[in-house]
């Protein structure tokens, strides 16, 4: 058994201090000021230096602490909860670069990158070109062979930290022919480069994440040694797609920290406000919205948790689950923050006052939908896998191990070499539904069982529809109806994640039916939650707010002012 939240998170929390303390250089006030100036919060970066955040991104064999993806997520949630700009701008972008290196590189290159990160430096992931977006096969940036060297030419745009990174992981075309083996990843060590031939593009302005150093570089026949290629020449896309499975799972999972703070801000505001002769938080509609958002946060974290544990336990299926995590979790978070904005009304719109952080969170959260890889691209990536998943797993496949759902169960090491471009029909998560229904049931969970039975019927219907999909429906030209099948499947999996975590948890609240029933209700119809479900969620929400605990699955104690003064 291992704790869901690693103990080091408390140390990080202490380093970051009380967010509500206006004198705290890493507090909310400082975070807002940095956002207004469009700068990285310097004191925040120093605090993360002191904590050694980069070590979280480095595997243990290279001297880091990246043993468990779920612990990384919990650490990063702590950062995102304070400031998404710090989360992405200090950390997550280096993490993405690192994962590509750990997936593809030899020991020498990996050691070099690990040393840079452990030395507190940034590594940027230079994949993006504006002309091609998520279509990595369209990448134009070239790495042309030139004796023992490569010559790099082209532009990389809208890339975090590209100017200040000590090293870049660049996706470059090494073969002019179209196809999946025409690109390579190149590790560019900026300290070893001649100054000329590289031009910094002007920084890109954004509506959110304003402090992030979002830039671009233009290379003009810049020479790097051929040994800079990560893995075999031509393996760039394959590596990128495998590494993406880890990052598109963990980044949305981290981002739930943003909703956690947004929800806390909303509850705080509504608790202190009087409207129509009573506290605003007592207005029935306000209660309903807050309870619904809380349920969505729990579901988002449940999906993130199962997806993250799947990287360790069933990596051969991560191509599917990572797409589902990105597709569903990002939408849950974005919609939830929009609902809270409606509740806050004019107070959401203010960049000053006690709720000022809210509008920043709303702006900063937007890239969770399109950043790194877009939701639509994830949805599309599921299409060609659906027929085989349907045939091999949805009506009788091998179920997942219990450890996938028991959040305090040990996890085996992350094996980058076990990731696969496609799951070959293996879907232990969906298959676990039938197994759960065959197992013993607590009589008190009759309603949950009814949900599971309905889901099994839905899975059967999906299996019939997907098994027969013709090859013309597997690609970008697929009909909207096929995209809807991917949506139904993803949504179904979010319910299965909740159901299975509920069945495997030791936490008294999570073991209760309310949040699982809420997940089922909210994915099936747009009406408010049934009253008992709403009451259970709302009571838990207020209790956690009162006790200064996080709103996610972990319900962990948060640093707050009383604790400081004690």
């Amino acid at each position, binding site marked *: 058994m291992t704790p869901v939240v690693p103990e080091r998170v408390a140390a990080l929390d202490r380093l970051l201090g009380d967010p509500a303390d206006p004198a705290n250089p890493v507090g909310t006030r400082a975070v807002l000021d940095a956002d207004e100036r469009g700068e990285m919060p310097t004191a925040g970066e120093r605090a993360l230096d002191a904590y050694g955040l980069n070590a979280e991104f480095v595997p243990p064999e290279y001297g880091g602490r990246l043993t468990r993806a779920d612990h990384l997520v919990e650490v990063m949630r702590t950062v995102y909860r304070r400031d998404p700009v710090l989360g992405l701008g200090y950390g997550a972008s280096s993490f993405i670069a690192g994962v590509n290196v750990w997936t593809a590189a030899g020991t020498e290159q990996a050691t070099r990158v690990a040393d840079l990160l452990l030395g507190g430096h940034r590594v940027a992931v230079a994949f993006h070109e*504006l002309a091609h977006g998520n279509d990595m096969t369209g990448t134009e940036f070239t790495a042309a062979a030139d004796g023992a060297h490569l010559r790099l030419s082209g532009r990389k745009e*809208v890339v975090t930290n590209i100017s200040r990174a000590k090293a870049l992981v660049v996706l470059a075309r090494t073969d002019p022919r179209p196809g999946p083996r025409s690109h390579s990843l190149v590790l560019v060590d900026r300290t070893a480069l001649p100054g000329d031939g590289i031009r910094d593009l002007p920084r890109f302005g954004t509506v959110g994440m304003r402090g992030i150093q979002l830039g671009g570089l233009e290379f003009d026949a810049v020479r790097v040694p051929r040994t800079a290629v990560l893995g075999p020449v031509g393996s760039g896309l394959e590596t990128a797609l495998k590494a993406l499975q880890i990052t598109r799972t963990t980044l949305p999972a981290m981002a739930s920290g943003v909703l956690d703070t947004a929800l806390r801000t909303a509850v705080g505001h509504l608790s202190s406000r009087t409207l129509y002769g009573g506290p605003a938080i007592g207005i029935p509609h306000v209660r309903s919205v807050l309870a619904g958002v809380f349920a969505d946060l729990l579901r988002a974290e449940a999906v993130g948790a199962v997806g993250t544990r799947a990287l360790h336990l069933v990596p051969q299926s991560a191509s599917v689950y990572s797409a589902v995590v990105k597709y569903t979790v990002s939408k849950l978070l974005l919609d939830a923050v929009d609902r809270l904005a409606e509740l806050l009304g*004019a107070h959401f719109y*203010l960049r000053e006052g006690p709720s000022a952080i809210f509008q920043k969170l709303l702006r900063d959260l937007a890239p969770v939908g399109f950043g790194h890889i877009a939701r639509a691209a994830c949805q599309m990536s599921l299409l060609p896998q659906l027929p085989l998943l349907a045939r091999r797993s949805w009506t009788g496949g091998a179920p997942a191990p219990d450890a996938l759902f028991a959040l305090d169960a040990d996890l085996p090491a992350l094996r980058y070499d076990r990731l696969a471009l496609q799951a070959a029909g293996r879907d232990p998560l969906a298959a676990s539904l039938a197994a759960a229904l065959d197992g013993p049931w607590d009589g008190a969970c009759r309603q949950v069982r009814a949900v599971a039975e309905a889901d099994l019927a839905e899975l059967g219907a999906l299996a019939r529809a997907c098994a027969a999909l013709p090859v013309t429906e597997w690609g*970008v030209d697929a009909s*909207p109806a096929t*995209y809807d099948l991917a949506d139904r499947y993803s949504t179904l999996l979010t319910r299965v994640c909740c159901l299975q975590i509920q069945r495997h948890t030791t936490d008294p609240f999570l073991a209760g039916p309310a949040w699982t029933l809420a997940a089922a209700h909210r994915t099936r119809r747009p009406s408010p939650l049934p009253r008992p479900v709403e009451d259970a969620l709302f009571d838990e929400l207020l209790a956690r707010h009162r006790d200064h605990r996080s709103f996610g699955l972990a319900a962990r104690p948060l640093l707050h002012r009383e604790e400081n003064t004690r």
Partner: protein
Amino acid sequence: MIGAAALERVLAGHESGAWAEEALRALDDREDFPADAVAVLDDAGLAASYVLTPDRDFPALVALIRTVARRDLTVAIAHGKTFLGSVPVWIAGSPEQTRELAERVREGHPVCWGLTERDHGSDLLAGELTATGEENGGWRLDGEKWLINNAGRARLGCVLARTDPAGGSRGFGLFLVDRDRLPPGAWQVLPKVRTHGIRGADISGFVLHGAQVPADALIGGPGDGIALVLKSLQLTRTACVGLSLGAADHALRLTRDFVTRRELYGRRLGSLPHVRRILGRAAAAVLTAEAVSILATRSVHALPGELSVTSAIAKAYVPTTVQDTLGRLAEVLGVRGFLTTPPGGGFAKLERDHRICAIFDGSTVVNRTALLTQTPRLGRLLRRGSADTRGVRAAADPSLPPAPLDPARLTLVSATGCSVVQSLPAAVEEIRAQGHPRLTALAEAVLERCGELAADLADFVPVGGGLPSTAFTLAERYERLYAASACLHLFLSQAGRPAAAPDDDAHRLRACLAHLLDLPDDPAYDELAQTLLDWAGPAFSLLDGAP
């Protein structure tokens, strides 16, 4: 009064000056008031259209607001505020008050609308700013108003003040305060409030310190304030739809430009079936918002007694629908919707700006609450099926000249319910007779929803202590029925339409109905996506030849 087409030409003429996109973006960035852009509107005589004389054409006013908002919401909101602040005088002012204010408005003096206070938001009955009667018949005003658009720039303010210390619905009066006639310091402007969007707008508040105003500053009687505000809101909320429609035009244009040029995976983005469905649904949603807007703005003339219902529907439905649509379009635009520098266009700014539209002048929740207070009657009348069919016909036919504006016909509660919704069955009957099979099927489905809602409304009893979320779902369903009925009536009223128009000719209506029925897929979405891709005019509209 200047027309929308002429105003569009004026603004196009300043595209390289005060109305340059780049200039407006820079102002937003620096949080500076768009004074030059406002000056262009003043020179064009836009303010004169804010004077509501009986011969005014309310839909034409809203078309002007849409024309400005299409280019910049901040400017539209900053300038249009004068209309909001002066409406109470047009409704209840004495001839003298009306004449004087009309003169000031035409001269371009900004008027602000001082309703809300720091601790009370939409809860107007909790307002603390007081008006104390003086021996000379005048009044002394003390207190604060906060989150007031143009609080600093306004020369006049329409201020809600407590005239009876006990408060209550008869305890407030509305005062037109002339800042030019106050001693210095009596109207203290509060610091500019920094906002999420409309960053350049003059949003702050003011404190009145013993501000003495003459007896004729009072609009109506000393206890008329709340009722007068509620009637004024019927007009201002209806006018606000122009802001959302302009934002929708702008967003659809940016998206169309992107998908027609963008290549991904070797395909043109606008040719992908899945993307086309998103575009078609977004376009359909906007057209339903426009249909609601057309009917609501024409109802100001044709069904003024029902505006308490109509305005609440319009103000709840239109900004909410447009905001949802912006979210769908943002997903298509991806990083381009997030960038504020090239290749990002104006999307990020308009999306931020627009979020205020579902908040100010009564948020969506406030409007749905207003609608729900009338639901017992609305449900009864819906089940009975009675409707002012002449009024509906006049409201639904844009080719008919509007009846004279008569503010005296505004009421706090609609005795006849909502004729547009109540005449839905009749509209479906007419559609049936036209013989479009696909259209008829959709219309029948809408009618079925209408029957379900009528039954559900019968079970609903408004209770004290705040309405439950289930009630808000009823309000939302009612709004959708209004939108569906508006689309059907507009379709039926379009003159020159051959009785047996081919079914595919009705694709706009079919897409609207499919969207309102929340059908995930319908062939009409794809057809409407093509219409959007081929669209060239400034306004994306149901009406052919709209400016």
